[in-house]
């Protein structure tokens, strides 16, 4: 692996199928170091599949994926030192925190990753304590993860990934199903990564988040990249958002006249474009 290479991930002509159903169709993209990326797309557009491929949990049927210039393949992940280095550098927060929580206590859960990396027990304890305090869940350390609330589970899941201080963080719909306070905490965290110290790739269909958490967006539909641009460029392209089902047509009545127009939900209510 060559960390000095320009692209963290470089994907060329990637195809992926679930049985016979295509999920990614000839997808190509390049993600640079320190970039904050938003993968935008409606449900079923291929965002979660792409994140799994970027985390080497799935591999395409056709095409090429490179991580810092090295091919990311089942064979390369069987190489112990490559796999160790990759897992140390890349962390994925799953959409459903329940699948990510399988240890008897919150402390054990957060310690799972560092232990797999073979860290010393002193280093593990130190890193876990720091991660728990960082996510404001230190008081939950001896609780069973499956008995926590949805927001607490999500924070434990994020802590269990951040504990390794990965260089690349992949997040799958990080704020979905969270209450407003938990949402705000997660968004604050994503905003804090603006320094460029981490490469952050967030899959979401919540447009109201994009401006705060990303510098660059990829809009996906049917397993393909439909558009690339800054949040301002993408969010101002109403036709694109409507075409990719990221906004929906809103029907209502003004002065006795019913008409429809694109409609976006935002943190402070919702906005219309007439």
């Amino acid at each position, binding site marked *: 692996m060559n960390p000095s290479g320009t692209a963290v991930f470089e994907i060329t002509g990637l195809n992926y199928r679930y049985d016979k159903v295509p999920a990614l169709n000839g997808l190509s993209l390049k993600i640079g170091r320190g970039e904050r990326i938003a993968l935008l797309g409606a449900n079923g557009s291929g965002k979660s599949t792409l994140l799994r491929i970027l985390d080497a949990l799935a591999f395409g049927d056709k095409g090429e994926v490179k991580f810092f210039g090295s091919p990311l393949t089942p064979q390369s992940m069987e190489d112990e030192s490559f796999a160790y280095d990759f897992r140390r550098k890349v962390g994925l927060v*799953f959409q459903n925190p*329940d699948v990510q929580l399988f240890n008897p206590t919150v402390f054990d859960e957060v310690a799972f990753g560092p232990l*797999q990396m073979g860290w010393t027990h002193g280093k593990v304890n130190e890193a876990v304590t720091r991660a728990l305090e960082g996510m404001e869940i230190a008081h939950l350390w001896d609780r069973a993860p499956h008995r926590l609330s949805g927001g607490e589970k999500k924070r434990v899941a994020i802590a269990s990934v951040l504990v390794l201080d990965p260089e690349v963080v992949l997040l799958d719909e990080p704020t979905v199903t969270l209450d407003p306070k938990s949402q705000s905490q997660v968004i604050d965290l994503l905003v804090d990564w603006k320094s460029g110290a981490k490469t952050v790739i967030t899959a979401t269909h919540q447009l109201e988040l994009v401006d705060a958490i990303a510098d660059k967006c990829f809009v996906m539909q049917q397993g393909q990249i439909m558009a690339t641009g800054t949040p301002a460029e993408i969010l101002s392209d109403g036709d694109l958002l409507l075409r990719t089902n990221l906004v929906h047509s809103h029907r209502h009545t003004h002065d006795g006249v019913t008409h429809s127009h694109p409609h976006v939900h935002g943190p402070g209510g919702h906005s219309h474009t007439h």
Partner: protein
Amino acid sequence: MSQHKFLSGTIGGFTHALQHALESEELARVDGWLQRLDPRVKLVGLLALVVATAASRKLSVVLLIFAVALVMAMASHVQWKTLFTRVWLPVLGFTGVIAVPAIFLTPGEVFWRSPFGVVHVTHAGLRAAAMLVSRVETAATMSTLLILCTPWTHVLKALRSLHVPVEIVAILMMTHRYVYLLIETANEMFVARQSRMVGRLDAATQRRVATRTGGVLLSKTVQLGEEVHLAMQARGFRGDVRLLDQFRMETRDYAALMLLLGITAAALYVGH
């Protein structure tokens, strides 16, 4: 059974099973004799007693090993009621199906004959049935004590430290998590179904509903199980069990190991 009772009974059963699973982890952290021992000592010592139970040909020896299990349970704060409901009664039900016919079918000296001589019970039949039931009850009690008094992750690490192949340990680890998922998913599915049902269902419809639910449940939990495995892989899991707790043999562990292996040796010698 009415549809309401059928569903609420099923939900109650799943919740009960989940509660049991959670209690097991809590019991493993209680300060008791078995809980204080190194997991490797428990694994080797209790499995040795299971082997002695299976190898013994004398009922008295099996019953003595059973008595040892009861003493260990008391010293480890495991209530007999817990063992009765979770081990002894279910095991009796399963082995009874096999043991009861043996009472009547095993040839030998007649112990009791029914009026008109239709059926008769033999001494050999009674001995065979008692031997089968007591052996299975004793072995199951020992295994349950190991699981109840040891956190599951420690059992897995002990297996690895005894050179059990990593593939087998990984399968056991996933199976444990899968069982949790199965119960949780089943519970949610039945509650969701109950919330959408009005009126009564006839028996045939109930059977159809149960069959379909079973299929969907299996499919859903397989998918969830795969996701859990991916989440473990994503954090560097490659099959080996790594824990913060380090196993360290102390004097009491050596003493307990000697005691358990001594009982095993004596049982093998006397019982053979």
